[in-house]
């Protein structure tokens, strides 16, 4: 059951990330999507991939995006 919830979270947070007006929220929602993907990898019997994805998808990529937003502009216009 958990896996279906995770899949819904992944797709919904990906869509929500792309319709936000505030780019910082986009960064956070991307992290949500990446983190849920990491847990899904664990359920799919790939613990090594899950570890990498948890670090890269849930921490590094949102931080990169947030840094890019901080250096540019926050609102989507």
């Amino acid at each position, binding site marked *: 059951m958990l896996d279906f919830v995770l899949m819904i979270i992944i797709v919904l947070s990906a869509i929500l990330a792309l319709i936000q007006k505030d780019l910082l929220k*986009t960064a956070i929602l991307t992290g949500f999507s990446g983190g849920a993907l990491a847990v899904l990898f664990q359920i799919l019997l790939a613990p090594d*991939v899950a570890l990498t994805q948890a670090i890269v998808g849930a921490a590094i990529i949102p931080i990169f995006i947030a840094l*890019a937003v901080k250096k540019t502009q926050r609102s989507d216009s």
Partner: protein
Amino acid sequence: MAQTQLAVLFTSTALIIIGLYSAIFIDNIIKKIIGISFIEEGVNLFIVAIGYKSGGIVPILMPGMDASWFSSNSAYPLPFGLVLTSIVIGASTLAVMLAFVMVLYKRYGTLSTKVMLADTSKKEEYDE
């Protein structure tokens, strides 16, 4: 095919389609780059789903396991090894693209793709 595996394939298709949609229709460059990175995530999910085995075990041979029982019950580990590389490549590509965006923002002062990445061949060709 197990139900989970089928659902995962639908999820990965959804991610790829979201990525392709955002590549065409989203104007903000940062969102466009994030959207395109979803294609990569969808593909990774698809490749992990190939190796998944319904009711199987994690492909790590623990001491005390029978080798033939292990090989018939574990998930297929080769795709997982590939995805590890692919995740890192995707993250580094995203980082380089965001770095380019930061540099170009200083020059244009906007994040709109239409302005930032418009046709430049006319502008430079004949500057009086």
